[in-house]
């Protein structure tokens, strides 16, 4: 739980009001407002964000039951596999339905739950089905790589077929993913919240420098550096994860050349790319280093980066990320490393990791999601939510 609720837009936020207050309607779901909010997650930890959002909106979460049903074979004595079952317990005919889905460790089950609920709503004659998926799964598989599949594109096609008509998401790994969909995508940003955290919680942030852990994160780091008027540094080298390699690394030996007009010497093979040891481009001596990225998953890269930054003279190291997957050994590695704090938003539930590692802090982003839902339902402009966003963010 964050120590206090962070309210980023302190002045001029048109509908700022304390939680739980209502403005004219009763707290009951009124058919007049014509929208319902459902959560398609089956586990309680994941519905936490949905509950916060519905509190801010002043509505109740829609009644539905999502569970995994064990599918016993006719002669089996033990369950063979678990299939997702969704039951919607109230009428949704003609309404705008928002499905809030957080993606926990078990990605494929969560995706299936979302698809099944969306299709259930479509066949129950909902008017519009809007998916609120703060962390969009499979977003790292958005390029062709070594004869693989572009899973993100496949997922986009499946969501369209299942009946979704709109998606609200947050900090997509690559903005081009918006083009994979045939329906509108609203890509909200968590950066105003994270920037406010930096300005309020890091005492001498003006002596900080924004660091990109790898060249692919340089653009995002630059947008933070620009808004905070700080310097930028980029790390590059061996301990970086291999997926930032050549996007399409398919390799085959050359087949026998069939006769063409030219013949002659074969050009020499280019040498294989050796990864150099980690280098820091930019000066971090005597400063606070703030590593900025969109996803914190496997923290080995961050730990290695923190070591190098410490060696080069950074006296404090923060890691700011939007989506904190923090899988496997992450809490232990963070606890033992040179990182001082890891700040993530609550788009992905991470209570267990927080218990294991007190260095992890949470920023609540339910406000912007609730505001997006309200504006989309009322058909209002969302431009206010993108006020301070730069082109590179």
């Amino acid at each position, binding site marked *: 739980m964050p120590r206090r609720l962070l309210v980023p837009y302190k002045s001029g936020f048109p509908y700022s009001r304390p939680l739980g207050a209502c403005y004219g309607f009763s707290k009951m779901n009124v058919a007049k407002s014509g929208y319902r909010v459902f959560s398609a997650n089956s586990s309680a930890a994941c519905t936490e964000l949905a509950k916060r959002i519905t509190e801010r909106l002043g509505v109740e979460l829609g009644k539905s039951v999502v569970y995994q049903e064990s599918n016993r074979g006719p002669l089996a004595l033990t369950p063979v596999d678990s299939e997702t079952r969704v039951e919607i317990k109230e009428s949704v005919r003609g309404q705008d339905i928002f499905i809030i889905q957080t993606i926990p460790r078990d990605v494929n089950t969560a995706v299936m739950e979302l698809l099944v609920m969306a299709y259930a709503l479509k066949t129950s004659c909902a008017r519009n089905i809007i998916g609120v998926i703060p962390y969009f799964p499979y977003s790292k598989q958005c390029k062709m790589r070594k004869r693989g599949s*572009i899973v993100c594109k496949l997922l986009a096609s499946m969501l369209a077929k299942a009946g979704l008509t709109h998606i609200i998401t947050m900090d997509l790994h690559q903005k*081009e993913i918006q083009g994979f969909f045939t329906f509108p995508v609203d890509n909200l940003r968590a950066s105003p919240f994270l920037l406010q955290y930096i300005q309020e919680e890091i005492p001498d942030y003006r002596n900080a420098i924004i660091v990109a852990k790898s060249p692919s994160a340089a*653009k995002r780091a630059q947008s933070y550096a620009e808004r905070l008027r700080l310097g930028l540094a980029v790390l590059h080298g061996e301990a970086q994860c291999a997926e930032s390699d050549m996007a399409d690394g398919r390799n085959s030996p050359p087949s026998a050349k069939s006769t*063409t007009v030219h013949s002659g010497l074969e050009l020499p093979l280019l040498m294989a790319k*050796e990864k*150099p040891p980690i280098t820091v481009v930019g000066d971090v001596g005597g400063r606070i280093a703030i590593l900025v990225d969109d996803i914190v998953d496997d923290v080995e890269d961050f730990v290695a980066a923190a070591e190098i930054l410490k060696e080069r003279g950074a006296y404090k190291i923060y890691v700011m990320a939007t989506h904190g997957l923090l899988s496997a050994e992450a809490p232990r590695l963070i606890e033992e490393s040179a990182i001082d704090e890891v700040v993530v938003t609550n788009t992905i539930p991470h209570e267990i990791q927080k218990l294991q590692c007190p260095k992890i802090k949470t920023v609540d982003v339910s406000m912007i999601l609730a505001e997006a839902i309200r504006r989309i339902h009322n058909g209002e402009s969302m431009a206010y939510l993108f006020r301070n966003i730069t082109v590179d963010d």
Partner: protein
Amino acid sequence: MSNIKIFSGSSHQDLSQKVAEHLGLELGKVVTKKFSNKETCVEIGESVRGEDVYIIQSGCGEINDNLMELLIMISACKIASASRVTAVIPCFPYARQDKKDKYTFGFQSRAPISAKLVANMLSVSGADHIITMDLHASQIQGFFDIPVDNLYAEPAVLQWIKEHVPDWKASIIVSPDAGGTERVTSITDCLNVEFALIHKVRKKANEIDRMVLVGDVKDRVAILIDDMADTCGTICHAADKLISAGANKVYAILTHGIFSGPAISRINNACFEAIVVTNSIPQEKNVKQSTKIQVIDISMFLAEAIRRTHNGESVSYLFNHVPL
């Protein structure tokens, strides 16, 4: 090779001719003209029934006209019973409009994703396969439901650097903006040299950007690498910045040399040793106007990709090697 026909659109006849020569074929006969009301008319001059057709058209010059011509040619071949139609598009049009992120006055404007629209149009007109080079963002491959081969100019660029930059081993590769850092580091890993980057700092909303160099270029040869050169404002500022930071010489290597507007005069006034582009876009006029421009020929990449696709061989050899 049998059952293959190569047609050229009107955007880059020269490149198509070179590609056909590499393959030992003649370009297919096609007549493209405009009616008096400026509508494009395409007539395929030979039979394509059952053939594997390749149409070479680059997104340059009069982009909308060339795009329309490409769509009409694809459709014409498809309804003439071609067995497979592949569009070879060295410079993909509208590739920069690939996300909804143009900000005017600080608001996210209602920008279309034109690259997705172009992808839809190509699929609808009947293309079965796309071959392109150095897409602005590799995610554009995912906009299509048909296979897309995104070739890389990187092997040709590396070969040029090794042959034409005298002390390339002590050079430093520079990215003119933070977004191109990944492209640059992929080259520095091959050459085993260091990299630097330049990032823009906006003082206020409407003030001129200040450019900050991150990294050290003193007494080194600096090589700027980017994928497109349009108005060349960014790379000229970057070159000035590098010279004032102590670089000896500045080269610029860009895959697609669009050179529109004041680009040529800016280049002539700036302090480049050489500006290298590929011939994905016709460069004869530009080379005449500026002595600093040099051209890398990519026709053999396209020819080899076409040959391998037609024979059903693997194309991935081209991702690391320069074909002859």
